[in-house]
């Protein structure tokens, strides 16, 4: 019966101390009764293999012990879906920008394109990536574990008011406030742009001047046209407060054009010269070069950010409107 003792000892390890002996005594009695009955049935003394097969049927010691323990969990079934949702958002907010920046560097930075430099960068970023990920997941888990503890004692989730449920939001409806803010912001921008950004001397104070290249004028007109376009669209949206394929398409075109113009501006080496009485011409040229270089270096990040913003805001809206339209046509065809 040495094997049985080993089995019972393994079970005992996982049981609550106060009940260990009692539970093991009862289990021992039950198993011994079963073994005796089996011995009578086969008409011989049981060997270790017979006992092992009976014990295997009863289950792993941890599983057997677990049945005597109260149900325990770090995050219970009520909070678990929320926990999973928050984890997914944290992962998305952390992982996607990280990947997009690397992708942008590979696409737009020639010095980054070799396999060696990509691997070197990934190897450099790897430890900090996991450290931040570990702490982010750990922090979310800790918060939810604490919430679970509080919930199990205070039952705060049971106290809710159906009257406080948020209204069902029509995703195709354009809130009036959004249109007003958009209108005001673009109007202020357009006034400021026309009065302050026309000149190629973009900064002139205390003897310091920053002069831009003639290409600036092209950007001036482009951004002014975009601001006017946004004002026109916001004015229409203020009156017709639903997204249609037409105004959503125009919104997408304006946003994409703004993103392209902004990214282009970064690569255009717009700073022609920096003039200051305290700077030698050579030093001033170095500064203007540095500004142009840093702007150009931020180009990949800007492209990725713009793609992300335009794609997340515009594409789902267009897809939703298109599927809605298809469904409407199908329903009309059924009538």
């Amino acid at each position, binding site marked *: 019966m040495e094997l049985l003792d080993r089995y019972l000892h393994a079970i005992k390890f996982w049981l609550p101390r106060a009940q260990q002996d009692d*539970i093991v*005594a009862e*289990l021992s*009695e*039950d198993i011994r009764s079963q073994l005796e009955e089996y011995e009578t049935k086969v008409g011989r003394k049981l060997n270790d293999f017979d006992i092992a097969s009976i014990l295997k049927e*009863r*289950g792993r010691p941890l599983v057997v012990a677990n*049945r*005597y323990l109260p149900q325990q969990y770090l995050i219970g079934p009520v909070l678990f879906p929320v926990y999973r949702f928050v984890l997914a958002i944290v992962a998305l907010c952390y992982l996607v920008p990280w990947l997009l920046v690397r992708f942008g560097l590979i696409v737009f930075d020639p010095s980054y394109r070799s396999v060696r430099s990509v691997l070197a960068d990934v190897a450099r970023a790897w430890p900090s990536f996991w450290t931040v990920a570990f702490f982010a997941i750990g922090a979310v888990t800790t918060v939810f574990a604490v919430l679970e503890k509080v919930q199990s004692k205070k039952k705060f989730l049971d106290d809710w008011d159906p009257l406080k449920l948020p209204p069902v939001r029509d995703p195709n409806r354009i809130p009036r406030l959004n249109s007003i803010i958009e209108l005001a912001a673009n109007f202020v921008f357009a006034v400021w742009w026309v009065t302050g950004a026309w000149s190629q001397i973009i900064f002139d104070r205390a003897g310091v001047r920053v002069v831009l290249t003639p290409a600036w004028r092209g950007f001036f007109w482009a951004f002014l046209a975009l601001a006017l376009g946004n004002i026109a669209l916001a004015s229409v949206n203020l009156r017709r407060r639903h997204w249609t394929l037409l105004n959503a398409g125009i919104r997408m075109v304006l946003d994409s054009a703004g993103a392209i113009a902004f990214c282009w501006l970064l690569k255009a080496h717009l700073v022609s010269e920096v003039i200051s009485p305290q700077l030698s011409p050579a030093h001033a040229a170095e500064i203007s070069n540095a500004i142009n270089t840093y702007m150009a270096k931020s180009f990949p990040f800007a492209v990725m950010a713009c793609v992300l913003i335009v794609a997340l805001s515009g594409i789902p809206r267009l897809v939703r409107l298109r599927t809605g339209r298809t469904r409407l046509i199908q329903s009309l065809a059924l009538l």
Partner: protein
Amino acid sequence: MSHSTQNETPDVFENLRLELRRGCLILAVLAALRTEQYGYTLRKVLAEHGMEIDEGTLYPLLRRLESQGLLKSQWREEDKRNKRFYRLSPEGKQILKQLLAEWQGIDSSLDEILKEPSHGTS
């Protein structure tokens, strides 16, 4: 599609069967313990009456019912071995009576529902 449904059906049935039996097992254990028994014989009695229960379910259940005051237990020597005998407590008898009434209520409700013509097939 129908192939996967056919494969899943036994699992679905088994899960539902276990769910259905879980509540009935408590009733069966309480009913069987109107006469004093220890775990092993209780399991055999239940099995003989078609209510098989594995020891991993029975013993924790007996402990739970005892902690709820529905059973009383006592360690006693029988056939030169110490065994723990269980029997229904007075509270357990009361609860069993109530549960049986509930069970009969469910049974007759189900009978009534089954007697009605099926809405889908008519």
